[in-house]
């Protein structure tokens, strides 16, 4: 009785705390509103969308081949895996088969990206729980991997290295050697992290029994990837629907039992070792051969055979035949260097000093007046007029190069047409299942491009993981589901 009255007088209210979108521990711009009773979480409401850039809508305005760089910017932590996911989906839509070597290389870089993603995850997860040094150790190895990425494509994060139909270029031999050295050394580095935290009493107290989620519930909520496997569901798309070269390597999938933060942590640590193994197997088996499919309908022509850039006869000069020129002004408008001048209905002229050898005039001219003079670089206009011949009388190899160039122009301008239909293709990125759903209406651009982002689903599971725990466990929960807001919001 007395107690009841006392409760009436001392009415307690929950305190609602707004966490983010600017908060050091929310991995970007996630916003959480926590209703707390003392230090216990009563309710969590996540708010996302602070990084929504409209990639899906933007993808509808670009051709299938142009939208590839957008996928890097989704999950910028493991851009390579996202690229691969997109490329695999588009290849399936077009019915292209990448060559064997390209598939192997893609699998290698995909697993590298998995390692680098898990390293970043471990680093930030440990930093959130307060273990500062693990953060810096992880970044040491991550830098190594990023240097390797740089070696093959020149970029560290947003790589855009896999292409539809293969990969951008073959990997250099030094890359494979360096990577082999990395795989040699990496297991000992994993041990190093584990000595810091694996059996650390504080770490165990902070992770064991926190954020438990059962297998059925996890599947029902749509969790995927290591987050799901920590609960004991053996769902891994690399095994369920093998793409690229995953059916040619042997690896195990780590599965947890209780589904708490510690299990998910262990799963990812074991995945690091498995990925390391996969890379080693693939390097040993790497077959020789081309790295790009040869399909004139869907694949860009090889750059080294194309006209202006690295053609064997480099000292080309472009010239407009006076007799054939009708003075329509098309080339003048198209010229990016503004090197072409001339009155209307009078023959135009190319200022050789300004010309950048882009061959735009060659492609745009409808009257076959613009031509190319092999070995004509640095010659005067009179001399060029002497040497110049009509485009259809040019030597055979230059003609071919020119055709390739025209093909590229068409390709970039319109994009190859996809067959009509719809397709959902999922791949296993480090964070979970990345799905691409295309609706094609038979044109060069997707009618609808849908990205199924694992982070989006995982973020929606946050309330389920946090309620009933303490404020500090929210941080651990955000870490354990491994979200990147760029992917979550798209």
């Amino acid at each position, binding site marked *: 009785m007395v107690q009841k009255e006392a409760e009436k007088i001392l009415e307690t209210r929950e305190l609602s705390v707004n966490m983010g979108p600017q908060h050091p521990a929310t991995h970007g711009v996630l916003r959480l509103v926590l209703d707390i009773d003392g230090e216990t979480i009563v309710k969590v409401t996540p708010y*996302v*969308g602070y990084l*929504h850039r*409209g990639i*899906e*809508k*933007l993808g*509808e*305005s670009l051709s299938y081949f142009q939208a590839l760089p957008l996928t890097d910017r989704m999950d910028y932590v493991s851009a390579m895996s996202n690229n691969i996911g997109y490329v695999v989906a588009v290849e*399936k839509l077009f019915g292209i088969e990448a060559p064997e070597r390209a598939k192997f290389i893609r699998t290698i870089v995909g697993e590298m990206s998995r390692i680098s993603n898990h390293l970043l995850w471990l680093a930030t997860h440990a930093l959130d729980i307060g273990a500062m040094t693990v953060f810096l150790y992880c970044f040491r190895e991550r830098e190594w991997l990023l240097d390797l990425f740089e070696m093959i494509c020149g970029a560290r994060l947003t790589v855009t290295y896999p292409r539809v139909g293969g990969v951008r270029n073959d990997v250099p031999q030094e890359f494979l050697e360096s990577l082999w050295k990395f795989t040699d050394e990496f297991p000992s580095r994993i041990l190093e992290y584990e000595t810091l935290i694996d059996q650390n009493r504080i770490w165990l107290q902070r992770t*064991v029994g926190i954020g438990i989620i059962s297998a*059925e*519930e996890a*599947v*029902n*909520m*749509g*969790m995927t990837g290591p987050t799901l496997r*920590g609960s004991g*569901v*053996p*769902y*891994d798309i690399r*095994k*369920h*629907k*093998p793409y690229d070269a*995953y*059916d040619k390597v*042997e690896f*195990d*999938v*780590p*599965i*947890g*039992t*209780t589904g*708490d933060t510690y*299990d998910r942590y262990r*799963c990812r640590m*074991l995945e690091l070792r*498995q990925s390391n193994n996969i890379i080693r197997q693939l390097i040993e088996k790497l077959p020789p051969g081309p790295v790009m499919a040869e399909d004139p309908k869907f694949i860009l022509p090889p750059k080294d055979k194309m006209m202006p850039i690295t053609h064997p006869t480099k000292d080309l000069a472009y010239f407009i035949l006076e007799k054939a020129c009708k003075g329509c002004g098309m080339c003048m408008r198209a010229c990016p260097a503004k090197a072409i001048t001339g009155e209307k209905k009078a023959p135009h002229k190319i200022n050789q000093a300004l010309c950048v050898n882009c061959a735009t005039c060659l492609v745009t001219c409808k009257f076959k007046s613009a031509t190319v003079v092999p070995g004509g670089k640095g010659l005067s206009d009179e001399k060029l007029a002497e040497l110049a011949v009509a485009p259809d009388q040019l030597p055979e190899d230059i003609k071919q190069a020119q055709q390739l160039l025209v093909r590229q122009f068409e390709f970039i301008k319109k994009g190859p047409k996809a067959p009509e*239909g*719809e*397709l*959902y293709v*999922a791949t296993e990125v480090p964070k979970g*299942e990345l*799905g691409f*759903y295309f*609706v094609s*209406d038979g044109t060069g651009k997707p*009618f*609808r491009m*849908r990205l*199924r982002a694992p982070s*989006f*689903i995982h973020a*929606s599971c946050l309330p389920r993981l946090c309620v009933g725990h303490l404020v500090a466990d929210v941080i651990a929960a955000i870490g354990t589901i491994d979200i990147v807001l760029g992917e979550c919001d*798209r």
Partner: protein
Amino acid sequence: MAVTEVRISIHTTGLDPKDIAEKIKGQFPDQVIEVAEFRDQVSVIIKRDQVVAVLKYLHDDPVLSFDHLQDLTAVDYKGKKDIRFEVVYNLYSTRYRHHIRIRAQVPENDTKINSAVPVWSGADWHERECFDMFGIEFTGHPDLRRILMPEDWEGYPLRKDYPLKGPELDKDWPGFTDVLKRSKELREFDWEG
């Protein structure tokens, strides 16, 4: 607390998606409109009235057991089809490894469909996103609010008639334009070297 490494086979043993489509047809003969196939993926187009019943059947049936909702989204077929919207469910069974796609038609003048949250709780945010991007209302959804865009945003960005570059500056989201105006006012206090 124990994490073990298991070897999963890579051979899929699931049902043929065409058989699944037949099963659905047998169970709900008046609901199925069409069955489409493209590159080994089968999608079943159904009416929207019984959509939750169909989904529940797919989820609960012991042979099918579609426990994993891979994706839920909508497509705007403006100018292509008579019925403008379609809500797309991509389903997968983690146990039997088969896949099916369900497409429910939603007309433009009455953009309502029953929510799939009772079947898969993971559908929650997917449906909110569909509401946000297409304006499709999911009746029975526990908390249907905008998710990616600000809550007082006007228009549905992923509809085909929405411009890619968004509204003009004077019709833009007030939260944004207010800040622009205020920062212009505050600019006079900035220090200039």
